[in-house]
């Protein structure tokens, strides 16, 4: 076998092995999307009921709770960024990071300090490499987040919100995650969780023309709101984590599908080149034999004389 042909054969073998891996990853991601979507759907009733309850308390009572009223002069905002732990998901993490950068810039231009909280190894690595300050970070559960994970993420956020601004508390709470629209579309979005914008919340949950009933609060509106808001933040974080997980799997599936397709194309073109090389080798061998025998015949003819 000629050198050229051997090189082609070796490359075909290595590309075939890569294709097998990307194909497997594609299929794993595809099966996980379905699971993640089911989890998003299962968490929806809790989230809607909770948002409804928060809206009911906030609109139905005259209580002024620090978490629902906008600070007149906000000086600090917290931004939670959800990225993935693992790569090979196309532009998934970098899109979320870019969205967070845009939000940070906007908040800074409004004169607010920005505290970053990061979920996922990719985001942590990005911020560490650029030596940006991160208040807190979590890794290891972006594939399939549980409610306990959401609680862990939400706890320091709630603490920061309830603290006085002068003592390092924050006035606003934003979350940046990748919204799962469909198998093919995922958008990096930023949402303000707190202070609550009631108009938006009530639009989401209460249908047109539906009037919220006058609730009787047990034990009192303040206490209910105090208990509700941490749960509200947790549930929003949980929902964002689940959507981000579904988006991550969808992004990985798409990235791996195009990798598999590319590997297939590469194998086809390499096979063609290998065939051409083999053919050239054979042609060369034939011409060498023909040339050799002709030379021998010439030499014999010469000696006969």
């Amino acid at each position, binding site marked *: 076998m000629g050198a050229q042909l051997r090189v082609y054969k070796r490359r075909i073998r290595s590309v075939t092995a890569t294709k097998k891996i990307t194909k497997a990853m594609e299929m794993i991601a595809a099966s996980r999307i379905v699971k993640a979507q089911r*989890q998003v759907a*299962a*968490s929806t*009733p*809790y989230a809607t*009921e*909770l948002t*409804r*309850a928060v809206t*009911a*308390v906030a609109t139905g009572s005259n209580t002024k709770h620090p978490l629902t009223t906008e600070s007149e002069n906000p000086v600090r905002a917290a931004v939670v960024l959800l990225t993935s732990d693992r790569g090979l998901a196309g532009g998934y993490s970098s899109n979320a990071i870019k969205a967070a950068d845009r939000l940070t810039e906007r908040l800074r231009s409004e004169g607010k300090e920005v505290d970053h909280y990061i979920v996922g190894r990719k985001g942590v690595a990005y911020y560490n490499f650029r030596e940006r300050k991160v208040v807190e970070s979590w890794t290891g559960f972006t594939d399939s987040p*549980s*409610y306990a994970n*959401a*609680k862990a993420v939400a706890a320091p956020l709630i603490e920061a919100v309830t603290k006085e601004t002068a003592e390092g508390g924050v006035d606003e709470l934003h979350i940046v995650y990748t919204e799962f629209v469909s198998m093919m579309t995922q958008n990096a979005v930023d949402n303000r969780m707190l202070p609550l914008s009631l108009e938006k919340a009530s639009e989401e949950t209460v249908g047109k023309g539906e009037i*919220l*009933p*006058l*609730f*009787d*609060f*047990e*034990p009192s509106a303040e*206490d*209910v709101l105090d*208990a*509700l808001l941490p*749960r509200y933040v*947790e*549930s929003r974080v*949980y929902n964002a984590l689940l959507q981000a997980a579904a988006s991550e799997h969808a992004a990985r599936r798409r990235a791996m599908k195009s990798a598999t397709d590319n590997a297939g194309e590469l194998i086809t073109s390499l096979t063609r080149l290998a065939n051409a090389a083999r053919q050239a080798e054979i042609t060369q061998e034939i011409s060498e034999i023909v040339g050799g025998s002709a030379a021998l015949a010439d030499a014999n003819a010469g000696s006969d004389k």
Partner: protein
Amino acid sequence: MAAELHVELVAADRSVWSGEATLVVARTTSGDIGVMPGHQPLLGVLESGPVTIRTSDGGTVVAAVHGGFISFADNKLSLLAEIAELADEIDVKRAERALERAKSEADAASERRADVRLRAVAGH
């Protein structure tokens, strides 16, 4: 037929039980509360404790609910809990083991959880 109210018992990650009922008893931070059809709109904070639902076909559903909220409006009752389990789903042996472990480790929160689970099973 007696008046009915629609009950949704939802945990953070799933819907646990839903159906029609004639009476729901739950424990709020200011004491036990019973909700029957036509109750005034209510929003309360739940203690961890067993919740009893008397279904409209005469049966009783007991669930262990760990913290959360009760909200009632328009004859619809929602029980929201971070963790909620029906009495049938509770593994008694595991809860007993958890109770003992929690007692030996003096872990008040998990002792309470295990205790609520066992009481929900006993009340069934």
